[in-house]
């Protein structure tokens, strides 16, 4: 997994609440057996008309946001299906950080597995970032994972929380499975004990 340390980039505003995973990547694109190449279909039904032409007023089609690396979103971002195709599409597009007042649980976890940092902030702070994002490509925000801060183009800085283990994995680009397999002895011990306690499982 790619490391996430510090990012300075354009932020796109998406104030809509309850942006679900069907919006992020419609099901027709779930038939792939690969992880890559989904960025072109990110937000497909909002981004293109039925003929495949771009819808001009969709945020990521606007010239100033085409290179966005940060998304400032409305409440409950990523609700719905568990499809990891959603973060795959987001990462493939080039977005590495999403800020909202809240995220759906499965989507939130999926982000960390794909080098994306989801940041939860209070409503008033998200509102400040949303306003800053509306300034377009001149307004570059900076996300510093080590320091756990996000800074607007005007230098206003907000601190955010992140789980220590998830932060460690993101900063170092670590593979979860490798880490867990280091604890193989604990898993084996648990299996031995569970086989006695609940042999029917």
């Amino acid at each position, binding site marked *: 997994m790619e490391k996430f340390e510090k990012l300075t980039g354009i932020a796109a505003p998406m104030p809509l609440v309850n942006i679900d995973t*069907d919006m992020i990547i419609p099901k027709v694109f779930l*038939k792939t057996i690969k992880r890559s190449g989904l960025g072109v279909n990110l937000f497909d039904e909002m981004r293109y008309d039925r003929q495949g032409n771009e819808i001009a007023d969709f945020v990521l089609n606007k010239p100033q946001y085409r290179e966005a690396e940060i998304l400032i979103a409305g409440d409950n971002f990523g609700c719905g299906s568990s499809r990891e195709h959603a*973060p795959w599409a987001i990462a493939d597009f080039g977005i590495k950080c999403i800020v909202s007042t809240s995220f759906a*649980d499965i989507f939130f976890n999926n982000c960390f597995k794909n080098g994306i940092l989801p940041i939860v902030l209070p409503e008033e702070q998200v509102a400040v970032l949303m306003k800053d994002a509306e300034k377009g490509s001149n307004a570059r925000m900076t996300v510093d994972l080590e320091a756990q801060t996000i800074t607007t183009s005007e230098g206003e800085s907000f601190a955010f929380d992140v789980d220590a283990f998830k932060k460690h994995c993101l900063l170092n680009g670590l593979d*979860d499975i490798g880490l867990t397999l280091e604890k193989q002895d604990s898993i084996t011990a648990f*299996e031995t004990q569970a086989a006695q306690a609940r042999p029917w*499982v």
Partner: protein
Amino acid sequence: MAGKTLYDKIWDAHVAHESEDGTCLLYIDRHLVHEVTSPQAFEGLRMANRKVHAPDKTIAVPDHNVPTTLDRVSGKIDNEESRIQVEALDKNAKDFGIHYYPVSDVRQGIVHIVGPEQGWTLPGMTVVCGDSHTATHGAFGALAHGIGTSEVEHVLATQTLIQKKSKNMKVEVTGKLRPGVTAKDITLAVIGKTGTAGGTGYVIEYCGEAIRDLSMEGRMTVCNMAIEGGARAGLIAPDETTYDYVKGRPHAPKGAQWEAALNWWKTLYSDDDAHWDKVVTLKGEEIEPVVTWGTSPEDVLPISAVVPAPESFKGGKVDAARRSIEYMGLTAGQKLTDIEIDTVFIGSCTNGRIEDLRAAAAILKGKKIKDGMRAMVVPGSGLVRAQAEEEGIAQVFIDAGFEWRLAGCSMCLAMNPDQLSEGERCASTSNRNFEGRQGYKGRTHLVSPAMAAAAAITGRLTDVREMMAENEPA
């Protein structure tokens, strides 16, 4: 020290390792797998030269992509990408030696219907699947939740998940339900009250008389939609109803093991002095048959209501409601019972079990669907389908004008040929009314199976209680 909740007890029994910061390795008893969210995970195993850690605890079945038309028995899937995904699962199941129900097997069906039906899901277990509706299995008092593909790979490789514990939320539904009100109405009413993010960070335990009175099928419907309320999982403590359902199923324990299991299962309830981080209470008798009017499962109203005005909401929801109403082609103030329907879909992991089909058939018996209506029933598994045929329910649907299909996810997510066309309006027993969920620009109203049947007859959203009065002698 405070007592434990049911969630606390199951969690504690499955922690294989705990780090100083509270990050745990949670051991997984059952891993269910389907064709859409697993190919990349198996590919990851191959690339790292890893095996499936516990193939005997891993169960796969194709469901999302498979066509449900009767010509499927020929074994052909026309859509090439879908066929490749299903063939990939065929191959992965064989290569990695996991339990498998292929398309040709009568036991094939929606993964969340097959698991309980075959006795794979038991009380007190941890169950995961790369599908958000894994919450369904919580009906057995099993801790069950959806995971992403990276986590699918993690469970395949290690039989554990890296987890932090969620908070405890109690949803109590007191008293008795009124006639015409079902498990679907309960679960939608709860989401209507808490919102789609109300459960974020929590595991919900549903309790109270109205929940206790539900069959296992009804309890599965309630827990299935816990995820639509944002919760990691939904749980219902096991009781005699649970044990009766589980006993004798192919993979349920037998003999002395059954007795041992039962002894443990009987300890699986929340202690009276357990700590709850959040409590929500609904009165069962106040719940009406409900429908959704918008494009989020929280957009729930009793069938007697009208389409709300966007200005009646607060914050970001004002714009969201405006967008929903426009997308759905409705007008604020319009009576929900005046909304005309083109299509009726009965099925899905929410409402594709035998009891759901019985409830719909009871309304449809001796009646015809409205002229021009497109209506289909997609049983949740091959065994549900066989049972419905044996009980004569299949014939009721066919006589009424419904298509009688083979098992699969079908129009719930429309990855297969069953889809809505642009502007087509559907009364659906599924779980999500998101934009485009059932087809590009399709319009979905979530309802119970009985309400879906009523809408099929009248051609508009209908209060099923009016029809029940018709069917009953004076």
